[in-house]
């Protein structure tokens, strides 16, 4: 039984220009103690996905469909009040992206953590404060006793992120969701924070969902990876397998566009085109407009997630047995022109 099971999650934003289908049918699982990386380009819907889990989506957005089961509880059926008291901060906690602004500047760091401890647990004020100091120490902040009395602006970026992590640990959560926690930090500090996450996983056995667009980070921390594109998960696999044997064309292109130390720079290929609009996504497979190999069917229906290995699936017709014999059309080189027709013909560009 998984700790977290998400099926068919859909979150839409009702905006001036149309309905933005930020998350459009997402399924994934996280087992207890496991760390899942949720990767994808900006705008893929990663942040919206994880925020939807906790009901943190605000007008004009709304979670319109889906089931979220956490530790047996049906989160999608819980009221805001129930979520507040039972889930947010206590069972599932969040580590935000920008440590600069995520903390309240007018209260001490210690008091902010202590407040959460006091709210969610039975501890007294002093006990809560002691716990805060202990946590700060645990995450590697020197002189925790003194520093707990200091204000956020007196900490450096990396230290602030540690504070946020301490806050996330404060109520012994079963799951921590980290939303791009290292993006706003220096590279050297990034490494430290990533190490911290690894430590936490080992020490406390907390499950982590790690949202990022940085594949290098994923490599360090995550057991499994799910790749998102335009509101859908296109591939998921254990990290090593994904890295060695990516199946989905999008994942393949992602891998090829990332700089890793053991790669020749001349092999880098940027992904052609840009992510299309989430208001009016391409019909059928959403990636088809940038995909180097497509069938006609790619435009007619969305490819199901097909098992391609143990614990490894990819949502692409290339892996469908039906199409084994067929030759896909190749689109190499320059950008594939887009036609968002409902008849599902592929791009009109001819090489």
């Amino acid at each position, binding site marked *: 039984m998984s700790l977290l099971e998400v099926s068919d999650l859909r979150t839409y934003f009702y905006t001036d220009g149309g309905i933005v289908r930020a998350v459009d049918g997402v399924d994934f699982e996280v087992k207890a103690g496991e760390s899942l990386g949720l990767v994808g380009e900006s705008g893929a819907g990663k942040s919206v996905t994880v925020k939807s889990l*906790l009901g*943190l989506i605000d007008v004009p957005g709304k979670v319109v469909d889906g089931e979220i089961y956490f530790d047996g509880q049906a989160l999608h059926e819980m009221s805001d009040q129930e*979520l*507040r*008291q039972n*889930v*947010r*901060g*206590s069972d599932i*906690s*969040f580590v*935000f992206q*920008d440590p600069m*602004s*995520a*903390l*309240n*500047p*007018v*209260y001490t760091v210690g008091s902010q953590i202590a*407040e*959460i401890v006091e*709210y*969610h647990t039975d501890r007294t004020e002093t006990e809560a404060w002691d716990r805060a100091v202990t946590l700060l120490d645990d995450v590697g902040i020197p002189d925790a006793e003194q520093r707990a009395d*200091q*204000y956020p*602006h*007196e900490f450096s970026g990396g230290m602030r992120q540690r504070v*946020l992590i301490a*806050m996330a640990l404060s109520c012994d959560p079963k799951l921590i969701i980290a939303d791009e926690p290292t993006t706003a930090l220096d590279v050297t500090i990034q490494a430290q924070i990533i190490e911290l996450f690894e430590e936490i996983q080992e020490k406390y056995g907390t499950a982590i969902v790690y949202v990022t667009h940085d594949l290098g980070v994923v490599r360090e921390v995550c057991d499994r990876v799910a790749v998102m594109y335009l509101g859908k998960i296109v591939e998921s696999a254990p990290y090593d397998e994904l890295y060695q044997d990516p199946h989905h064309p999008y994942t393949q292109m992602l891998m090829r566009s990332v700089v890793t130390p053991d790669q020749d720079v001349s092999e880098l290929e940027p992904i052609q085109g840009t992510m299309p609009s989430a208001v009016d996504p391409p019909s059928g497979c959403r990636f088809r407009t940038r995909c180097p190999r497509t069938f006609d069917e790619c435009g007619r229906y969305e490819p199901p997630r097909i098992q391609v290995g143990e614990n490894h699936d990819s949502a692409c017709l290339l892996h469908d047995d039906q199409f084994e014999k067929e030759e896909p059309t190749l689109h190499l080189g320059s950008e594939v022109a887009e036609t968002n027709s409902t008849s599902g013909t592929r791009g009109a560009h001819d090489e």
Partner: protein
Amino acid sequence: MSIYRYSARRILQIIPVLLGVFSLTFVMVHALPGNPVRIYLGLNPSQSLEQELLAEYGFNQPLWKQYLDYLWRLLHGNIGESFVRKEPVSDLLMSRLGPTVTLMGLSYAIALPSALLLGVYAAATHNELGDHVSRFFGLAGLSTPNFWLGLMLIFIMAYLFDVLPASGYVPFTEDPVASIKHLILPVITLATAQTATLMRMTRSSMVEELSKDYVQTARAYGLPERRILLKHAFRNALLPLVTIIGLQLSFLLDGSVVIEQIFAIPGMGRLGYNGLLQQDYGVIIGLNIFFAILFLVGVLITDLAYAYIDPRIRYN
């Protein structure tokens, strides 16, 4: 920088402005039509007396020397002499300080809590009916001329319903009840615009804070909305308001001139008004100086308070 350095810096910054004010008033004195002494002496002065006084007051000295003398006198607290009463302006102002300060103090006392309450309420009901209504009344309060409001209040409360006195001032120590009765209408008149402005500022400050990341953090940790509003957001929203409160002193001082005239309150504002009627330039210019000093000191105090309240400045 530490709070001490900040305070020292702020105090030092005032000095050139004060100097500027003194210089400006010096220019004003010498821009007056005619000869200051002649105005002082009134109509048909004797030539010899005029010459005598000119020499005595140094008006026949070179301008730069007059300027330095002027500054010297100012630094000793001499802000001039009333042309009509032949008394030092500072004395006149001091004797009238009480009523004006009472008026302004009460105005603050009413405006602050009301504005904060309404502002927070408006921000909490952001874009809903409560917000729109509050914003409308805020705008209306801003747009109401205080002199008209005063007259209307007098007409309704004093003439129509005869529940409050139309004018006059009674010191609190003399007769508390009468004192309060006489103060109700003037204070309400003065406080209306102040409340409106402050309420709007509070609202916009709160709305700004509620959109910040730390609020999102608090929500993600399940803290109740009311606590987020009143404890987390409000404390931050308060900071810029502190500065505004100091700046409002300028409008209150202006307001006192009008209100004291309408309600016949013997304060500094009234002194200025009478001074203008009588063309008593000594009083007029003395009032300019004194009001400017009051304002600058007031702003300084609020700025220092701000430095004390904001941990980012205090602990650095």
